[in-house]
């Protein structure tokens, strides 16, 4: 039995309601290397929850574990881009230096080695999270150095040797991460006018603010592109004793890292956008959901909030406006891609596993704790602040009819200048490749694995909701890359991140893995191509949320743009191949028998 006083202390700090579960569980995990069944029992008792509910929570998030982990956890990012940039060598070096394999802990209980999906450092891959410390630009030499250093001081923060640029050097950040702000646009990354957006909003009525956002024709920047003004209006008119604004800072789409740079360089702009939303929607409470991978930014963001309170930009009677109260609280994620989906994010904030909710009802009607809630992306909120500062017309002049303003792109992969590019909507892929040194690419994945594969014939296509809609991830693949390897990597990602709630996503993502394996091993026939297609289409049509509905996209868009990747090497129609290797399959039984005869 472990003393329950520690749990009591955490409850006193974080609260005794289920929404406090994430902070309590994260703190226990950090201090004790796991959230043990005994701790789960204590937490359940204090928060008045079922033990099974706490266990479901702990079991859902990959940063929380029931089984003890080492004092330090090394999470190697095994995203497709990292695999392109030498992940295998780095993993081998870590395994050799630590004397354990991925998934294991050193015998002294000091260090656990594991892998994790995209941590938002694709432009500086291969990368890892060591504790909360992001470590970019890994090599096998660096891996060995890191292990020897950790063996000496056991302190991940002391691994920070050379700090990155910009606010990565801020005393509360002190990170090796680089912004790689290759092309800051004049809009989102334009000059700062502290307090100006809120001042402008307060000179209007809340409905005028919503009308301004509508006039600007702003659409959500997370990828789906829902009109922000409409979302706000639904939330404004919905009835509720409380209302919430949630900033979705859980970018998890592989290849996306633009929100990390916005949060590092322009956090005030994001909070200003939230505050404007609070005024427009009549919400007094804001939640800022920060992905677990960006925990290193938390002290810095807390400080930003504190300074805004001191300056009268948050808190009571903001900027002297009587009765306009609004404040923001940071909530953490703990390793779940699905939590970037707005209803899963809300479940996570409420102290539940982050699986998606059924819609209707939409969050605008029934969101956080059942109250009307508007969930907006980091970049969207930035746009809000800038639209208030410069006017809707200035914003709407940029871009296209259905895609106004600029888009911040995260470019990575086989290009010479990976990083952040702010471009007006309507910019062609070709232009993006030129800017980033990705000319001659063989393929580009726009919008991450849930987006679209584009072949060179499609490089004239435009970044826009009218054409290539994207949350901002642009992954460049050189002409010699084997796309089947990338496809398998993304299939692994979706299978790993599926919550498992609905049949098509839980089983279908595994089936896609199984089929692609057959293709790689040269065992596939036309029947497998047909099966793979049926699974991908079933996912798209019948899944419960966006994860499942897009998990078949890598396969489907590959067949549109790169059909040879899957079709080359298939035997003629009507010819069947053995789906498995008989020799390999009976090897285990043969070993048990201890003989060669079958």
């Amino acid at each position, binding site marked *: 039995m472990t003393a329950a006083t520690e749990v009591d202390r955490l409850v006193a700090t974080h609260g005794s309601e289920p929404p406090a579960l994430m902070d309590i569980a994260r703190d226990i995990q950090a201090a004790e290397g796991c959230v043990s069944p005994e701790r789960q029992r204590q937490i359940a008792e204090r928060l008045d929850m079922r033990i099974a509910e706490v266990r479901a929570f702990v079991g859902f998030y990959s940063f929380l574990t029931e089984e003890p982990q080492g004092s330090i956890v090394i999470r190697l990012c095994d995203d497709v881009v990292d695999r392109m940039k030498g992940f295998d060598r780095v993993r081998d070096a870590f395994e050799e230096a630590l004397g354990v394999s991925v998934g294991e802990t050193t015998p002294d209980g000091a260090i656990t080695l594991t892998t994790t999906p995209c941590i938002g450092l694709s432009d500086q891959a291969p990368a890892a999270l060591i504790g909360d410390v992001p470590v970019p630009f890994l090599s096998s030499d660096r891996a060995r150095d890191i292990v020897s250093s950790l063996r000496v001081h056991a302190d991940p923060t002391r691994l920070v040797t050379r700090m990155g640029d910009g606010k990565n050097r801020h005393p509360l950040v002190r990170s090796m991460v680089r912004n790689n702000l290759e092309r800051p646009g004049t809009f989102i990354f334009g000059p700062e006018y502290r307090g100006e957006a809120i001042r402008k909003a307060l000179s209007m009525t809340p409905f005028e603010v919503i009308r301004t956002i509508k006039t600007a024709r702003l659409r959500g920047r997370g990828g789906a592109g829902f009109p922000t003004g409409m979302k706000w209006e639904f939330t404004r008119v919905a009835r509720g004793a409380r209302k919430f604004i949630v900033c979705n800072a859980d970018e998890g789409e592989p290849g996306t890292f633009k929100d990390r740079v916005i949060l590092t360089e322009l956090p005030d702009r994001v909070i200003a956008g939230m505050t404007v939303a609070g005024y427009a929607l009549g919400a007094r409470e804001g939640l800022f959901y920060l992905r677990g991978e960006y925990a290193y930014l938390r002290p810095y963001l807390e400080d930003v909030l504190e300074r805004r309170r001191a300056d009268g930009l948050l808190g009571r009677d903001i900027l002297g406006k009587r009765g306009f109260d609004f404040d923001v609280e940071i909530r953490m994620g703990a390793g779940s891609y699905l939590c970037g989906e707005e209803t899963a994010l809300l479940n996570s904030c409420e102290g539940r596993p982050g699986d998606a909710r059924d819609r209707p009802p939409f969050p605008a009607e029934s969101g956080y704790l059942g109250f009307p809630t508007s969930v907006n992306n980091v970049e969207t909120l930035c746009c809000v602040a800038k639209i208030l500062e410069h006017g809707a017309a200035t914003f709407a002049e940029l871009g296209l009819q259905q895609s106004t303003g600029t888009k911040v792109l995260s470019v990575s992969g086989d290009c010479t200048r990976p990083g952040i590019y702010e471009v007006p909507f309507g910019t062609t892929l070709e232009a993006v490749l030129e800017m980033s040194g990705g000319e001659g690419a063989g393929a580009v994945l726009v919008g991450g694995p849930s987006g679209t594969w584009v072949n060179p014939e499609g490089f004239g296509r435009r970044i826009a909701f009218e054409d290539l809609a994207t949350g901002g991830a642009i992954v460049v693949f050189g002409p010699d890359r084997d796309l089947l390897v990338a496809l398998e990597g993304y299939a692994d990602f979706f299978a790993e991140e599926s919550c498992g709630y609905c049949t*098509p996503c839980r089983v279908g993502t595994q089936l896609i893995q199984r089929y692609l394996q057959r293709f790689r091993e040269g065992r596939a026939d036309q029947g497998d191509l047909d099966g793979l297609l049926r699974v991908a289409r079933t996912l798209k*049509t019948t899944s419960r949320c966006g994860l499942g509905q897009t998990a078949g996209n890598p396969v489907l868009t590959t067949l549109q743009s790169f059909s040879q990747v899957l079709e080359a090497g298939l035997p003629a129609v009507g010819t069947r191949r053995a789906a498995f290797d008989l020799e390999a399959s009976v090897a285990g039984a043969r070993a048990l028998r201890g003989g060669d005869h079958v």
Partner: protein
Amino acid sequence: MSDRVTFMLDGHRIEAYRSQTIMDAAIEAGVYIPRLCHVPGLDPWGSCRVCTVKVNGRPCAACIQPAMDGATVENDTDELNAWRRELVEMLFVGGNHFCMSCEKSGNCELQAMAYRLGVTAPTHPYLAPERDVDASHPDIMLDHNRCILCARCVRTSRDLDGKQVFGFVYRGAERRIAVDPGVRLKDSEADVTDRALDACPVGALLRKRQGFQVPVGGRAYDHEPIGATDGEAEGAPDGASDGESLEPAASAGREAS
């Protein structure tokens, strides 16, 4: 605003209360929409997706979708039944279902659904997951191999037995039924009289020492396909109970194993 709405379901006019789901309205009208996780009287769950219909051309799960006035809903179409076959197949290959040795055979809704939809043998590879059997309880067995994660036991235990014996844990391929508190059924409040046991559509939750008591020929789906009784309700449109794809009952369990 009237509290009644009217929509068209495969060409038949269906009346519903505003906020009533398409599924509930269809059940009331005696029209069968194939389903596994939904049971009238329990909160909708929307996990099996077998009840996928098209509302104004857009696919959605009938059990959670509120009826909309004037909507056109497709249900018994070749296209939708093809999606359903895929989903039922996925449930088979995603678990370990051996119909020929299962006590639930003939009374199993998954097996019956496969017959109704004409799933003869899976066309997708078996995933053959490694799953546990919890036989710790003196009277009840929980076999994760046969579980389709429909949450019928979870909801029945919570809402009808007033106990909350069951929940879920882990995600993706690892997702499975959990018991409260702890990990073993014997440590829970589960009792052999719980209605949650009857709620299981497959052979995942079974009462011990009661298998194979009903001879072949007397089991729930030996003579009629699943859904047949819904279709026989008053005013049911023709064809709602058709089961032309069914095999003779005696072969139950041979194919979809």
